[in-house]
């Protein structure tokens, strides 16, 4: 039987070319199929989220921003639906980055560069730009012909080119426009943008992102993935033999020949493969490679070649998935006459999932239980302690009270330590002796100067711990912190 094919007999990837070669323009052909549909769906989803999210409203009460997702740089706040983050909580972003990185690893260990093929902004926008190009200039053959006869600049051709670039620029411009909407109230900013009253920095960012989108998605395209992006290099170290990659199943036989020839050879019971060498898989590939040469750095795993080949196989009545998501182990197993096995649950994926669950869990837990009232205390260093005329000792502290809730709070400050301590907040006359009360407006911090005095009769020796308690008079919520009281 014609079962075993030595991979060494396959055409090897051609890497003997010059170190520097001019780019060969890629003209990907349109294709229909499962993966194309998945890609359209994900593209619509990603772009929809990106462009529309700034307009989603979220009611946070009067005076607070009502934009669901808002990065409020002037006030150092980040709003995400029901979450409001303060600058001292940036570690949530660290957590988010860890989750994102490990999720990328997990995707990679399950299905190779899924990120690259379906979700990466470079892929999504390039795909969109290709769609526009196809709509205006026609499919692969037409575009190739038009580019070749560049001399024939008829009115129709010129208007096509203008239309294409104008549409690209509009998309690019709106991409930059959507970006700045995340940093300011979106409807207001849109109004200010069109009436030229938005801040300069907004226009600058729109300009920058318009230019990058236009250049990266319109001109650089697959070159970004091949030459600029570090991920293809890194992911090679993260993948393993179980990861599903877009694979040409050479176990389905060689040699490649025409349908007619193949039928003849089969009739003679001779060795022949399913591939009819129609080059459809190459024609549709957005990075311009031939997947039949095996795994390649350029392949972004978009699956379009699978669709292309499936269409061919259907037409010639052979089983589909001559190209498919698979791994080398299974090719070997099929050649050995064994059933393929797929293992999604393996040590690697379990560990990645566990890390994601753990970090995500910790983040959710701390988010749910974090205190909306907090006190930070900074001991004065200069001078550390002061002796008063009656011999008592005084330490001064800079106290910062944080009220992260949406309502004003009246709070009382107490200090306790091993000796009797008298406290006073500068500018506050205590009604209750020794228990200064302060109003902390909602969603803000108050900085106070706090004086702590140890009476002469119970002067501490050197350094004693002091506990500061902040009590919400209305709700009884308490926040505490510990510092030191020092004698000179």
């Amino acid at each position, binding site marked *: 039987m014609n079962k075993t094919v030595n991979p060494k007999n396959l055409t090897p990837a051609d890497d003997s070319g010059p170190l*520097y070669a001019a780019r060969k323009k890629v003209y990907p052909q349109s294709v229909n199929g499962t993966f194309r549909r998945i890609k359209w769906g994900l593209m619509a989803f990603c772009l929809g989220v990106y462009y529309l999210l700034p307009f989603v409203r979220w009611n946070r009460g009067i005076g607070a921003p009502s934009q669901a997702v808002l990065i409020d740089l002037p006030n150092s706040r980040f709003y995400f639906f029901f979450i409001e983050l303060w600058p001292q909580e940036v570690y949530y972003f660290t957590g988010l980055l860890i989750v994102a990185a490990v999720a990328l690893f997990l995707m990679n260990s399950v299905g190779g560069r899924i990120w690259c093929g379906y979700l990466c902004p470079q892929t999504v926008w390039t795909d969109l730009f290709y769609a526009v190009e196809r709509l205006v200039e026609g499919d692969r053959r037409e575009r190739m012909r038009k580019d070749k006869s560049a001399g024939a600049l008829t009115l129709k051709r010129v208007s096509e080119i203008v239309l294409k670039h104008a549409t690209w620029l509009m998309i690019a411009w709106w991409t930059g426009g959507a970006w700045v909407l995340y940093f300011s109230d979106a409807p207001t900013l849109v109004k200010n943008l069109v009436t030229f009253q938005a801040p300069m920095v907004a226009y600058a960012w729109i300009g920058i992102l318009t230019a990058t989108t236009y250049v990266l998605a319109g001109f650089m395209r697959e070159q970004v993935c091949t030459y600029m992006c570090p991920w293809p290099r890194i992911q090679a170290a993260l993948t393993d033999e179980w990861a599903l990659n877009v694979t040409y199943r050479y176990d389905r036989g060689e040699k490649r020949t025409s349908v007619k020839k193949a039928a003849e050879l089969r009739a003679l019971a001779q060795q022949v493969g399913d591939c009819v060498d129609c080059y459809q898989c190459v024609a549709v590939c957005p990075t311009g490679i031939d997947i039949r040469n095996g795994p390649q750095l350029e392949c972004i795993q978009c699956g379009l070649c699978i669709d292309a080949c499936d269409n061919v196989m259907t037409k010639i009545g052979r089983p589909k998935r001559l190209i498919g998501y698979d791994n080398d182990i299974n090719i070997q197993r099929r050649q050995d006459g064994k059933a393929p096995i797929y293992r999604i649950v393996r040590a690697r994926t379990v560990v990645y999932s566990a890390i994601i669950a753990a970090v995500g869990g910790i983040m959710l837990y701390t988010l749910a239980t974090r205190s909306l009232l907090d006190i930070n205390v900074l001991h*004065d*260093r*200069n*001078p550390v302690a*002061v*002796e*008063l*005329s*009656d*011999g008592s000792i*005084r330490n*001064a502290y800079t106290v910062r009270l944080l009220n992260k809730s949406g309502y004003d709070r009246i709070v009382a400050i107490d200090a306790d330590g091993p000796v009797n301590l008298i406290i006073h907040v*500068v*500018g506050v006359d205590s009604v209750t002796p020794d228990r200064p009360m302060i109003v902390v407006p909602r969603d803000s911090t*108050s*900085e106070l*100067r706090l*004086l702590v005095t140890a009476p002469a009769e119970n002067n501490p020796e050197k350094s004693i711990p002091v506990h500061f308690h902040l009590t919400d008079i209305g709700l009884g919520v308490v926040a505490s912190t510990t510092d030191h009281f020092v004698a000179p």
Partner: protein
Amino acid sequence: MTDHHSDIDSVSGKSTTGHEWDGIKELNTPLPRWWVITFYLTIVWAIAYWVVYPAWPLISSNTTGMFGYSSRADVAVELANLEKIRGGKMAALGAASLADIEKDPALLALARAKGKTVFGDNCAPCHGSGAAGAKGFPNLNDDDWLWGGTLDQIMQTIQFGARSGHAKTHEGQMLAFGRDGVLKPDEIVTVANYVRSLSSLSTRNGFDAAKGEKIFAENCVACHGDGGKGNQEVGAPNLTDKIWLYGSDEATLIETISQGRSGVMPAWEGRLDPATIKAMAVYVHSLGGGK
């Protein structure tokens, strides 16, 4: 070596530069066009930069560039803008009374912030950056005040100074009882020990307290008051408390009594505007010792 450009490398079939080192020849591979274009663009950019921005040094100045751009002028504009933004707040500070400033959290925060920077620029050389003072320079964090520690008194001292020469300055001298021959050396030792006893510090063996009290009553009470409680009218310190501007050990006291003391605090009126002086008074008062 032959003509540079007709030298063809036999392996790659490309022309070489014709240079040869130890039998190794360099292929004549042109730089990528985008690279060359970028390079020329940087040159154009550099020339444009020379023309547009102030660049060429002349003997005493420099070329001003096409649009007269100057970073100094930019800073001046920004400072003016800042002044405009802050002007209102500082005006509010200037209009409010000292007591009101301490009651209003926003004004207090502004006064403390402003006072702190101005203190750092003007007062820190003597009083220290944290106002902890030094020998001869009062600690402004404690509650002992030579000239009074209420908001108004502090502001007055900042405005007019002490022994500063200003018409309204605080006056008052610690006389040089030894140098001027008013007291004999042994009397000085006795009164020094007496002063130490006022704040319960140890005294010399065999010191005559009655004699000390007598000398004190005759010479010191006029300024330091009965029992040495001090007098802020003349800046005479309280000698019964724990705080000593020049030191409380016997040697220092003997030096103080025999040589006298007259530390100078400059007047800040005229050098700082009224609102700033007010801010500084509030800042000093809020350090903790203010009355």
